């Protein structure tokens, strides 16, 4: 066994784990790791904040299906990781975050740039480690990657004191981890699977409700099963891309701002098979009106999700989506649901009513999203920020690529989209990566334009600028008697001029007839580009399901009562 420093051991295992890119921001306490990174083949991308690094690692992880890695120093570097770690935790994204820490002799003394980051991140990590013995480093790093990527994926933080990184490491390099308290269940219970198959056979109006779990595992099996049984599919925000939108069985997103066809189908179905989902409140809205006629099958790898939100689950299955769906596929014979599918087809007519009303400008965001979808065939990687533009993208971008729709779902983190696009483009340099954002969200991470330019990445940013936090404004419209407050951005910059200052190409469009030509030009130019679309702040996102209502009671347009 060769002896090396803790920092070197850490970097060696990153290499062993196949890490090609890390996103980070250095500082005093993490210097030993940076010295080793410099000698490594791993590419380091210096973001403009640590938060940008976490979101970039998140986008990288989602575009590749591998573990994203981000690195910070101690103290403020570590606290800046927090929002990004929480974002990854809520969306079950595999991340390993490595933070520097003050020397063990200083821990607990309120030393310069000391913060208890393992304490802070305990509720938002799948697991975390404070390494106090350099010999533990090989085992800890190996375990961190294993925990992050297996079972229900999630972020793992390793806090590494400076002296531990500098000290000699005599620890063994292990190839297998041994965690007696961590054994995810992959194979579903065969009795429950039989029950599920029975319900699927009996159902006259069965429906698949798929989420992020299908994007992680089993997208192919899901597609096969949907076709074999002729069962339509609704998706959550996190499930977008896991089943191609162009498929005739795809009904789109359900829930708060779900597509009319999807929401009607949920309310009408008699068997609802939730796959890799958690019956989130933005999906169910009003629990006792959610899928009121349906028997519910719930498949998820996390046992704690089953029965947590919807308690009337008829058939719970804990297991890996791909493994369980494989078993189900073996046990079913082809079916047809002609009557149900034609009923569902009729629901789709309502989809076209969901244009925002009161559009003062020629340009509404839906037109841009639809054109982007058409021009790209839904095969690009699209990231979004959080707000109205996110919902419009989720509704009208026809994602036909697994991992091709990247958005902060559970935490709803503004400022996510741009660094996520950076990460995705680093992962897939030859693909088109587009970030759809708003003027509120973009300004939370606008500094990452510099990182994108610095890496010469041809990321396209489509900015819907209405000088307003329009989704909050919409909430004030629905719930605060149109008393708008604290939502108008006075003093927004000239975004095109700003983008140019960062070295981006920039376009500003205000009219419908400019959409296609501008998008075509931007998509073909091979350069980092901003397309600013001026939209009206009075535009609203429809459909919307107001509190206390069932999904089928959504308002499809502004004058719906």
């Amino acid at each position, binding site marked *: 066994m060769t002896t090396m420093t803790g920092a070197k051991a850490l970097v060696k295992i990153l290499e062993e784990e196949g890490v090609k890119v890390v996103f980070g921001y250095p500082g005093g306490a993490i210097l030993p790791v940076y010295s080793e990174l410099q000698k490594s083949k791993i590419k380091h991308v210096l973001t403009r904040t640590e938060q940008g690094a976490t979101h970039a690692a998140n986008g990288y992880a989602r575009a590749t299906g591998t573990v994203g890695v981000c690195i910070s120093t101690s103290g403020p570097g570590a606290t800046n990781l927090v929002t990004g770690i929480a974002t990854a935790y809520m969306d079950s994204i595999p991340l390993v975050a490595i933070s520097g820490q003050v020397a063990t002799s200083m821990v607990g003394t309120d030393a310069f740039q000391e913060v208890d980051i*393992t*304490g802070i991140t*305990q*509720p938002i990590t*799948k*697991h975390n480690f*404070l390494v106090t013995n350099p010999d533990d480093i090989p085992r800890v790093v190996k375990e961190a990657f294993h*925990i992050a990527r297996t079972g229900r994926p999630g972020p793992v933080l390793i806090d590494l004191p400076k002296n531990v990184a500098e000290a000699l490491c005599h620890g063994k390099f292990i190839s297998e981890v041994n*965690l*007696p*308290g*961590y054994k995810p269940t992959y194979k579903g219970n065969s009795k429950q699977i039989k029950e599920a198959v029975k319900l699927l056979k009996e159902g006259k109006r069965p429906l698949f409700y798929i989420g992020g779990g299908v994007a992680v595992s089993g997208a192919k099996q899901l597609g096969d099963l949907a076709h074999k049984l002729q069962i339509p599919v609704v998706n959550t925000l996190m499930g977008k891309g896991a089943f191609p939108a162009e498929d005739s069985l795809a009904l789109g997103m359900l829930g708060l701002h779900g597509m009319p066809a999807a929401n009607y189908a949920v309310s009408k179905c008699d068997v609802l098979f939730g796959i890799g989902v958690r019956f989130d409140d933005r999906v169910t809205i009003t629990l006792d009106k959610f899928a009121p006629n349906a028997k519910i099958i719930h498949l998820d790898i*996390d*046992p*704690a999700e089953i*029965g*947590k939100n919807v*308690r009337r689950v008829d058939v719970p299955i804990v297991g890996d989506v791909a493994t369980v769906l494989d078993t189900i596929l073996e046990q079913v014979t082809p079916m047809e649901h002609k009557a149900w599918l034609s009923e569902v087809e009729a629901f789709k007519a309502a989809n076209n009513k969901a244009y925002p009303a009161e559009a003062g400008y020629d340009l509404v965001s839906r037109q841009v999203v639809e054109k982007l979808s058409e021009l790209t065939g839904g095969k690009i990687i699209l990231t979004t920020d959080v707000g109205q533009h996110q919902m419009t993208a989720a509704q009208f971008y026809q994602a036909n690529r697994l991992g091709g729709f990247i958005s902060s779902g559970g935490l709803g983190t503004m400022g996510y989209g741009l660094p996520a696009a950076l990460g995705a483009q680093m992962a897939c340099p030859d693909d088109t990566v587009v970030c759809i954002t708003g003027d509120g969200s973009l300004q939370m991470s606008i500094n990452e334009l510099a990182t994108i330019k610095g890496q010469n990445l041809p990321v396209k940013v489509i900015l819907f600028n209405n000088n307003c936090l329009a989704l909050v404004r919409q909430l004030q419209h629905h719930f605060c008697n149109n008393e708008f407050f604290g939502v108008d951005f006075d003093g927004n910059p000239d975004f095109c001029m700003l983008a140019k200052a960062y070295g981006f190409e920039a376009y500003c469009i205000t009219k419908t007839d400019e959409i296609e030509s501008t998008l075509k030009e931007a998509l073909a130019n091979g350069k980092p580009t901003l397309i600013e679309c001026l939209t009206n702040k009075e535009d609203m996102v429809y459909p919307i399901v107001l509190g206390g209502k069932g999904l089928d009671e959504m308002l499809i347009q502004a004058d719906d009562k």
Partner: protein
Amino acid sequence: MQHTLSVLVQNQAGVLSRVSGLFSRRGYNIESLAVGVTENEKISRMTIVVEGDNYVVEQVSKQLYKLVEVLKVSDITDEKYVGREMVLVTVSVEPSQRGEIIAITEIFKGRIVDLSRKTMMLELTGNEEKINAFVDALTSFGIKEMVRTGKIALVRGDIGE
């Protein structure tokens, strides 16, 4: 309803904080928590008394299992188990009252562990009910200080046929 959970965890730094943090952030009420090492020094047993209906206890148990250091969670509420708490209580006692206190302590099979001119310290182990009764019996003398442990518990052995 009160449930008694017996939880085996890896005996590592931070595990108590993970478990207690989980309870507070998910809004579960811990009535008591006692932790100590088992026959295997690498493993600790936590005995947690939690208030809640079956839904809450099922959630608690599933969430506990998600912690990497948690090895086993058993709800032993409906099993045959021996549960014990312990109390140390210092009572104000005039020398003339000592006999009465000694008698009470003997009735409960407690022990006298300290004596001063005006106080006595008593020790008792037993289930929650017994300890409550003991404390009630002493209240009229004036309890100066008291400390109680949380419940520890082990499931009884199976005698078989």
